[in-house]
């Protein structure tokens, strides 16, 4: 018995020693992740973190498709063909057929990544130039993300249906890395969101001042921040700033305003020469045969070759849009639309702006801001200010370049002409829905779709239901 109890004691003692060493024994360090507390302590890590934000923008639910194609389907530019069934509910403006929960999620995830970068950057030893570049890009991207969020989920300043207005979107500006930092934010006012976007862009412009133009168009530059400023200011009906920042953006030498002869070829080159900011996609980032912009817009694989069917061609120009382009004849922009194949049902006239320019089908860079948009922003601002001459100069610049003669209009006719040029120029690039919405206009649609009045709740996207459930302070938009 003694022996036995001795053995048991020995084993027990051994176990204690064994367990004492267990805490070390149980350490497993991840190899493809790093501790977040020390993640952003070098310039390289910060730069990688900025790449991580650009990457979010490439998603299908961001610029990959939704921010480009949905504004066309929801508005009066695009008609869904039902060839794959995609975008048909959006085209009919069915409730909930709108920007999706993923857009909300990706945007806020990217914003937190930015907040983390902005928080860490001042502490990381590096040159001021490098720090300014990193911070400037982050601020630009945050402004872009918040502006997209606020124009999807909330009304625009000056075009608000009061009884449906639940404010802007939650403003998160501090980094979150642990659960105790999480709170349940309410929606900031629309104005507060715009004020923050302005602030971010003001800061971005300062910080990006030293960044060379060679970074454009795939990375944020000062010109990109200024161009975005002109867009944001237009939404805010702050026309002086539209003009101020449009002027600035156009003076930086980023993006070339193409002439008539170059216009179509501009859309055929991998990098759009007019781009002030463009998202680049490499082969591994091909968005695929189902939802990439090429397959969404066209069945064609080669221009003029109707014997080979590629994509679905789910969204094609409405008769209304085609009529506008054809009304004056010779509009060079009409050349970007051609008859698709009958491979997936009746052949339709399809948009070929996205055409596998990256070297393989469905691989396209996506222009986010082009020179033409900035000119049109400014034209509209001049017109709104009553500065007919300068407004005419800008709109005729767009018209003449398209191969159309100058017009001499004023007042409402001039504004309508500017909006018409904007519609044609930026068609299938993700502008139309937001333009109609910020102007408070009804979305006029032909059967079988029905006109969507501006007072209708479907003008605003549903905030994801799980967000409403997880955050009692967050108010859902009416109707959902």
């Amino acid at each position: 018995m003694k022996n036995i109890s001795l053995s048991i004691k020995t084993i027990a003692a051994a176990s204690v020693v064994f367990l004492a060493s267990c805490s070390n024994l149980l350490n497993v360090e991840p190899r493809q992740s790093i501790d977040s507390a020390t993640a952003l302590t070098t310039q390289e890590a910060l730069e990688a973190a900025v790449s991580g934000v650009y990457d979010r923008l490439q998603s299908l639910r961001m610029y990959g498709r939704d921010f480009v194609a949905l504004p066309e389907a929801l508005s009066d530019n695009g008609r869904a063909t039902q060839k794959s069934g995609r975008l048909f509910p959006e085209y009919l403006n069915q409730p909930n057929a709108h920007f999706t929960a993923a857009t909300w999620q990706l945007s806020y995830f990217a914003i937190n990544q930015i907040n983390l970068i902005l928080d860490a950057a001042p502490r990381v030893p590096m040159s001021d130039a490098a720090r300014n570049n990193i911070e400037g890009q982050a601020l630009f991207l945050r402004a872009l993300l918040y502006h997209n969020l606020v124009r999807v989920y909330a009304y625009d300043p000056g075009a608000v249906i009061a009884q449906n207005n639940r404010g802007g979107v939650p403003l998160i500006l501090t980094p979150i890395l642990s659960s105790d930092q999480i709170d349940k934010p309410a929606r900031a006012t629309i104005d507060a969101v715009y004020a923050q976007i302005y602030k971010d862009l003001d800061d971005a412009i300062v910080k990006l001042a030293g960044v060379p133009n060679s970074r454009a168009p795939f990375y944020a530059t000062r010109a990109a921040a200024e161009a975005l400023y002109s867009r944001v200011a237009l939404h805010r009906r702050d026309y002086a700033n539209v003009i101020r920042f449009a002027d600035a953006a156009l003076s930086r030498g980023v993006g070339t305003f193409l002439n008539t002869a170059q216009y179509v070829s501009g859309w055929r080159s991998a990098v759009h020469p007019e781009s002030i900011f463009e998202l680049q996609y490499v082969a591994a980032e091909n968005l695929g045969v189902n939802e990439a912009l090429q397959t969404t817009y066209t069945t064609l694989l080669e221009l003029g070759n109707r014997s080979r069917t590629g994509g679905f061609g789910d969204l094609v120009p409405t008769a209304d849009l085609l009529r506008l382009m054809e009304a004056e004849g010779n509009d060079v922009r009409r050349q970007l639309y051609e008859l698709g194949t009958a491979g997936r049902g009746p052949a339709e006239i399809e948009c070929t702006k996205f055409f596998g320019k990256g070297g393989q089908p469905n691989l396209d860079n996506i222009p986010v801001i082009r020179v033409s948009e900035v000119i049109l922003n400014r034209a509209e601002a001049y017109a709104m200010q009553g500065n007919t001459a300068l407004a005419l100069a800008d709109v005729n610049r767009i018209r003449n370049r398209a191969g159309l003669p100058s017009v001499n209009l004023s007042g409402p006719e001039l504004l309508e002409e500017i909006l018409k040029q904007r519609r044609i120029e930026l068609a299938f690039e993700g502008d139309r829905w937001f333009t109609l919405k910020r102007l408070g206009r009804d979305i006029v649609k032909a059967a079988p779709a029905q006109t969507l009045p501006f007072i209708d709740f479907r003008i605003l996207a549903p905030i994801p239901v799980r967000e409403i459930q997880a955050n009692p302070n967050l108010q859902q938009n009416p109707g959902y």
Partner: protein
Amino acid sequence: MKQKFLPFLLLLLLPFGAVAQRTITGRVISNEDKEPLPGVTVQVKGTNTGTQTDFEGKFRLNVDENAKTLVFRFVGLRTLEVDINNRSVIDVSMVPDEKMLSEVVVTGYSVVEKRELTGAVTSVKGDVIQNLPMQSFDRALQGRAAGVLVQSANGAPGGAVSVRIRGVGSISAGNQPLYIVDGVQMNIRDDGGGRVSNNPLAFLNPNDIESIEVLKDAASASIYGAQAANGVILVTTKKGKQGSKTNFEFNYYRGIVEPVRILDVMNTQEFINVRIEAIQNASPTASPASVRSTALTQLGFPATMTDEEIAALPTYNWQKEAYKTGIINNYELAASGGTDKTTFYASLSANQQDASLINIDFSRIAGRLSLTQKVNSKLSFETGVNLSTFTQRGPYGSSSGTTAFGAPQYSAPIILPFNPIYDPEAPTGFFGLPGTGKVMIGDLSQNVIANSHFIKSKGLTNQMVANISATYNIAKGLTFKAFGGMDYRMLYTEFYGDPRLSDYFNIQGTLTVNNNYNKNLTTNATLNYTKTFANKHSVNALIGTEYREDFQEANGSNGQGFPTPDFSTTNAAARPVSISGFWTGFRRSGAFTNIRYDFNKKYILNFTARYDGSSRFGAARRFGFFPSVSAAWNISEESFLKGNSVLSELRLRASWGTTGNDQIGNFASRSLYGLGGTYQGNQGIGPSGLGNPELRWERNVTTNLGVDYALFEGRIRGSVEAYRRLSKDLLLSQPVPQTSGFSSITQNVGEVQNQGIEIELNTVNFNTERGFKWETNFNISFLENKVTKLYDGLEVLPGNLSIRVGYPLFTNVGVPFAGVNPANGRPMWYDINNNITYLVLAADQRPLGHSNLSTMFGGFTNTFSYKGLELAVFFQYDYGRIAPNEQEFRLADLGGVLRNGLRYYYENRWTTPGQITDVPKPANNRTEITGRISSYQSISRFYQDASYIRLKQLTLSYNLPSAWVAKVKLNGFRVYAQAVNLLTWTKWTGFDPEFVDLGTGNQGIIPQSRNYTIGVQARF
């Protein structure tokens, strides 16, 4: 060594030296079936004179004149002593040894007799699941063990199976039991990458299994403390028997696989008809002629097509081409035997089986060797090695559910029926491939049969599971055992998208390959002490420590641009597109003890505790303590019951214990920055997880009450268990507002309760003198599941309405269907106030009063035998599960989109005012004409009862009489015919009521198949 054997040899020679001898002959038969018993040891008592019976049970023995008694010995039978009484012919019949029948049960780190059990353990013997055409034993467990719910995730051979012991306790963490094969804790993660459903348990040939024990309550499982919250499944493989001659067994079966069900879908004419109706309903003012021409144009027909021309259009049956008869083939050879020091078991098997979906199959070669060696009276070794390689061909899209248009398991019933499958003019023979100028019409525009033929989707697993242990008897009753086990798995998967197929035509083909290596190591050391005091007090004490680590790494690549379809290796890709890789792992370690006290075999008290740590938790919270106590009272050992002729066995058991669960991500407690996507070729990083340094074990507290009973000398026997399992401090993935930059954080919050009753009843209904026997084995489990607590006083989990306090997990939530308005054919719903509405809103959703969890399940086997003939009939059932039938939902579109649908909906659709039906009128794009109402899209019309009873197995076998087989020098020869999944009774209208919802509901799952096999087993 030679010298040691010498005395034995001399002893053997002794009889021949004696002069006064006589010969005794005789025959030994079994009392049970009156069959002869070969291999019975016949010995003269007190001497070494002996022999063994031959194949006909006969023996001949020369004995001393003064020999008085013969002893007959046979494993499992009661040893018989017969006085010779000057007889020269002695025939005996032997009866089963009840003491031996008192089964031994493998529990954690030890083996106990069943009568010593204090917790809830179900044992399934290997012969019950022998020769089933199933590649992994978990699937074969279905319906065999009370309290164990087994549901196949798909019908792919060797595919994933969901096993839930006593309900679902965890909401976000894993609910998988711990599998231990010969002491090796298995890694059971499916790394098949979706397309190939890879069941890691398929490495083991089920025919190598001796027994499977399921530790169900916490008292039994808590010796595995931290990993045992979901129960433990212990697998013991076959071993050689000490002192037996070498036995060989050859086993072969062959059979066919056929689809269980083909859906009755619309033909071409019906589809065109209903499509026209749908468009007309959407545009009531449009003229029928224009609607007709619109519909026809859209379907690729001339607008001017006449009714006669439509009537002449063919219908192609895509399902018939997708679901076909396949084959099953199995070969095995096993050898086992042993001396008094060494035993061995060796087997080699080849198994091959098709799914009922074309070009999906499984083939395995597995070899197993186990050895035991007694070095001396103190030291012995035991080792086992299992090597297997299996290859699975997978489908386009996931086996366990997909909505990929290119996947035949999803698309075959919904492809528009006028699309031809084959095209004799096309170079490939298939219709509608890119470049042929012909395209398939409709949403489903891929030739899925061509996809099935041309893709290469493969998973190759090479796995080694090995164990070694040394046992040393330190002193009498005190044993030390050291154990080491290794589970090493290499999984190679590839997917080749053939450049001829529409998805891969534009990129000239794509090839993704992945290599996945998993190294999983378990070691433990135990010290066991057994002592009986004063013949009454018996004590068994065990202490031990254990360490486990499991590391996984993988790398892969994707390339595109293949010159021709004949090139399909990575080096043939013109464009390397991406590379991938990852590394992950965890460690666990702990110490445990088990003390059992047995008073006079009447009262048994058992105490178990384990202190366990896991690397997955926060540094300060890694260790948890998991104690349990249990007791048993063998009432039948009490004087008032002992020897009772009716009630031969009665035992009460009670237990309480705790177990833990750490089935979360390996780094879920850490705040980490991980790799994001890339931009401009630069790798991005971003936060990948919201850390919770306070994260700790999820705990299960289980109480169990059990009764074991046997009546009429065991002709009726079984057990009844009642339990309550409370899972608390759940490792809940708690949704956080995504405005934080994160979706969820894992917290220890919430509680789920499972309670239930399990009944096992085994009866021998007939056992006649003439050899007819009818046995019945029945088990049933009742289960009630309930969420009892969430967090922050919440009644519903944000983002998941089906998890709510007071309701079972996976409660179905929706807006109840109120039928079709007879006046206009529109579907109606009950809003939250039970008013009828056409428009379904999110706010109208509520619990529908049923859940996706089974509430009653089990199995029922009847075995009839007469002489060597045996018929086994096994039913398996699963009741109380109501699930949304997503597939039906898509098949009820009625021309709303360009997909085919079920004929039932066509024939029952609303067409005329006043018509009473539950099928609404066809609606273009599933939408009402106002464009505002998309309530056609509501799934709640399609909740169906997924309960079923299945004639799972029907086996007719014949053991050839041993007299016959002996003539060809065999020990036994059995032939059999078997059917699996022969008949299913269910209200479910999809392919199969048995499925596991992995996010796509029941859409695109490879269904189970019906199998017929015939086989032979020869022992020699």
